[in-house]
């Protein structure tokens, strides 16, 4: 990254600001005081070991969960700031946040094209005057629907799914279903695209194609991408900013290079260093005296 790029990246407008987010399930504090920002034109990755609270953060952002505490402010494309924690789920799509799921959630018995048309429900519903115009086949609605199909076609081309547009979504191969999820999310015309492990279950070639697609979305559409991912080859090559969570807390944040060499991150992923004190019970078995005990 050149100095110029860095300057441009820092100047990019903040899309999503997560402040002191906490999510409690009974006695479990799944997300504890997490703050970070996601900017337009950048890929922000959220990584961390299993159970670190990544998906919970996503569920709060997209309205699946009501956060126990904290604030999620999102700047819509008209500049107004929306507080996501106060909006019902179906409104969140309307202001420009789209997401995909770790386990694929397409409409399996609808065609590929129809999956993309459902994603444009709000503008089409408005254009069709609650389907009255659609039923009568009025020209105003025909035009809106043609535009909808055009947008769908654009994303089918970008994701390489044009040839299977008439298939039932459930019959697509796995990698294609993953791409269709992204295409469908993009058809809501989002400002922020949230992807929950988009590379899970993909082979290396498909992962590389995914990375290209995400890069082209970032650069072509200029929108923000928020990414949860385990596949480090994807995270490290395409992210502009990485947030690391462990046990619900943010333990590090920064560029991919900085995060990769961060001591706390290495500890979270690989465990303790050798020179850390042994757990007491192990020490007792080995007959070693532990500092501060048995004195």
């Amino acid at each position, binding site marked *: 990254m050149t100095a110029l790029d860095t300057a441009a990246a820092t100047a990019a407008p903040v899309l999503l600001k997560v402040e002191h987010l906490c999510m409690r399930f009974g006695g479990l504090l799944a997300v504890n005081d997490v703050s970070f920002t996601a900017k337009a034109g950048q890929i922000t990755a959220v990584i961390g070991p299993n159970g670190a609270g990544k998906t919970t953060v996503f569920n709060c952002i*997209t*309205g*699946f969960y009501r956060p126990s505490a904290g604030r999620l402010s999102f700047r819509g494309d008209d500049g107004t700031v929306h507080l996501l924690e106060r909006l019902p*789920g*179906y409104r*969140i*799509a*309307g202001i420009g946040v*789209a*997401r995909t*799921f770790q386990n694929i*959630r*397409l*409409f*399996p*018995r*609808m065609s590929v094209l*129809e999956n993309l*048309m*459902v*994603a444009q*429900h*709000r503008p*089409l*519903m408005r254009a*069709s005057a*609650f*389907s009255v115009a*659609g*039923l009568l086949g009025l020209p105003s609605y025909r035009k809106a629907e043609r535009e909808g199909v055009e947008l769908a076609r654009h994303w089918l081309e970008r994701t390489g799914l044009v040839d299977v547009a008439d298939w039932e979504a459930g019959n697509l191969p796995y990698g294609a279903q993953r791409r269709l999820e992204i295409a*469908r999310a993009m058809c*809501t015309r989002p400002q922020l695209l949230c992807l929950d492990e988009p590379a899970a279950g993909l082979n290396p070639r498909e992962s590389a194609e995914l990375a290209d697609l995400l890069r082209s979305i970032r650069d072509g559409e200029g929108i923000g991408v928020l990414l949860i991912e385990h596949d480090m080859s994807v995270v490290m090559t395409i992210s502009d900013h990485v947030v690391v969570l462990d046990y619900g807390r943010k333990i590090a944040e920064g560029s991919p290079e900085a995060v990769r060499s961060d001591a706390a991150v290495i500890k979270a992923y690989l465990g303790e260093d050798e020179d850390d004190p042994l757990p007491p019970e192990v020490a007792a078995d080995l007959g070693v005296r532990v500092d501060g005990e048995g004195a």
Partner: protein
Amino acid sequence: MEYFLQQLINGLTLGAIYGLIAIGYTMVYGIIGMINFAHGEIYMIGAFVAVIAFIVLGLAGITWAPAAIALVLLLSMAFTAVYGWTVERFAYRPLRGAPRLAPLISAIGMSILLQNYVQLLQGARVKPIPPVVQGGFTIIERADGFAVNISYLQILIILTTVALMAGFTALINGTPLGRAQRACEQDKKMAGLLGVDVDRTISLTFVMGAALAAVAGVMVTMYYGVIDFFIGFLAGVKAFTAAVLGGIGSLPGAMLGGLAIGLIEAFWSGYFSIEYKDVAAFSILVLVLIFRPTGLLGRPEIEKV
């Protein structure tokens, strides 16, 4: 042969009416997976609105049949749509996410409530109206004087049903609302995330089902000329049978099931005995459930692990 033809015409008329009611069951089942047992009552209310409207229009001097029927249809559909919306809003929506049995009990409660409400308000006595549409064609007349007739009313019922079915299929397949309904059927949460207002989509499903039941109610009122507060029960159970027979959740299935039940009833009462026509209809249901549990056009539910 002539007798067969006559029973065929009668059966088709009856089947069209059952089909219209069955669509309400099948759509609601498709979208929220519950049997709306109050749906038969909605149909009964549609019939009552029709009787009242016919009388009021008669008093107002609107006696030209096409105008009167159109007005009555509109009034009846509007009223029952409000009932359908209200039932969903107050009896089912608070129970969304509750165990499946809870909304079922609520539906049965709603059915009893509506029946008694109409009984108290309108009295338990049978309500007659004078025939609105009279006359018909004689298709074939046999030498011994037996004639195959199709009345104008039967033609009206069958044509209305066909038109509504076509409109409905277009709505479900070709409009954003229909697409949203099919999406909600498969994954409500995801549909919500894509900007579909799930609660409103479900409400509209109830409204549409109720409006179709109202059409059936108006037709029955004109066809038989008498109604009472209890007609919703048997018609509801028959239409439910039709929906299950066709494959619950499938729209063409509901229509096909309705026609099948109507034809079975007509032929059974024509050739065997009229007393046992309900037994025949329900026996068919039992047989279908044993040998083809998903119904004629239903798709088997495959559980993926």
